């Protein structure tokens, strides 16, 4: 069955849909967590610390966190590899362009591939910046996420990279969520409007929620 799914264009899209939905679920949780920064360093740092102790005593220290990380890495890799292979195939299937061509599909639809590449690069930067601290702008201190976040968003490039990526994620979700529903066969004529609305609301809420943090730092609400 795994072979059939991976070898088919329809199956590979299903892999993209499921991995995309896993990442989307994570983003919702991640955004809600981020918003705790507006309640001060105490609450935010406590939340960050709690993430390492989830599931104790059943789970050992950081086990849950690593479990989530593994699932996310698998989802990102599955999503990206499927996207790469399908895109290669799509480009090969339409080798010559029309002389008379016009852009038609919505901006979100047309930017899925470039948006995906931007997001992949962003994830690498984001982890190196705020998880490992390798490219962090200030003095990165493990266990002090509040200060680390403020440091990042006190630089112009930190803000620029983050804002571009969050707009890209919004556009990606707008087309991606609705598409995932079609790929998994749950879309229908009667449900179409509801699915599009949910996609737009999710895209808007996540973009706004994530952007609230750099905007908060820039306006000194968070400092």
């Amino acid at each position: 069955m795994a072979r059939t799914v991976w070898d088919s264009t329809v199956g590979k899209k299903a892999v993209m849909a499921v991995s995309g939905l896993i990442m989307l679920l994570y983003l919702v949780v991640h955004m809600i967590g981020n918003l705790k920064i507006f309640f001060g360093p105490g609450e935010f740092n406590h939340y960050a610390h709690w993430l390492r102790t989830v599931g104790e005593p059943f789970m050992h220290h950081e086990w849950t966190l690593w479990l989530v990380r593994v699932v996310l890495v698998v989802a990102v890799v599955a999503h990206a590899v499927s996207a790469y292979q399908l895109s290669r195939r799509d480009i090969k299937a339409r080798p010559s362009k029309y002389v008379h061509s016009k852009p038609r599909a919505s901006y979100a639809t047309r930017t899925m591939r470039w948006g995906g590449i931007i997001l992949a690069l962003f994830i690498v930067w984001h982890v190196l910046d705020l998880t490992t601290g390798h490219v962090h702008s200030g003095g990165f201190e493990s266990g002090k996420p509040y200060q680390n976040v403020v440091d990042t968003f006190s630089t112009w490039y930190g803000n620029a990279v983050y804002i571009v990526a969050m707009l890209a994620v919004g556009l990606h979700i707008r087309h991606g969520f609705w598409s995932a529903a079609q790929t998994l066969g749950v879309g229908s004529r009667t449900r179409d409007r509801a699915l599009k609305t949910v996609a737009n609301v999710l895209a808007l809420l996540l973009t706004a929620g994530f952007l609230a943090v750099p905007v908060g730092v820039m306006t000194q609400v968070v400092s």
Partner: protein
Amino acid sequence: MKLTLRVWRQKNADADGTMSTYEVDGISPDMSFLEMLDTLNEELILKGEDPVAFDHDCREGICGACSLVINGDAHGPERTTTCQLHMRSFRDGDTIDVEPWRASAFPVVKDLVVDRSAFDRIIQAGGYITAPTGSAPEAHATPVPKPDADFAFEHAECIGCGACVAACPNGAAMLFTSAKVNHLNVLPQGAPERETRVLDMVAQMDEEGFGGCTLAGECATACPKGIPLTSITGMNKEWLRATRKAAKR
């Protein structure tokens, strides 16, 4: 009407093609687009030039033979087939670009004619029922619920012209294949091959080198028969169901 046409000319499958410019005069707004091309070809033949090759057959909008991407739209600006597109959709003095369907699975044979036999092979892979044929069976022998009959009919409207492939940015044949799958899979007559049909037809579609679906929706916009985009959703559902069932066996 006086028009400037820019038409894709390509001697054969291996030759390089190019857009050639032609002027046509005395076009009536009531002519169909194909009649306008006939007028051009008559002039070309009188001048001893090679007429423009294009596919056409019934000229009634029901056979699926005619094609042409007109000003970037498959079958032109109206939602119909090229043979049913009339020159009143254009203005006197317009410049019109005419190109063949573009997809690697639809290689150009000559000028505006492409080889669409990939569609035939998709049909051969499962676009049929294995019920014995013969004289028409008694209509009430196999009851079909009215909503199912309507659903099947909507998808059965597909004439296999390939506009969906031509319009798709990925050169995908999803709308064509899904129309055939949905048409037969919803009916009791098509039930015995419900799983093998969708699996085999999708496999053949991939085999032919068509692209995948990114749900841009261009196919459904271009379709002269109004096959809805949800047809693809329906096929995806059937494919996933059939894959699960095959794994259980």
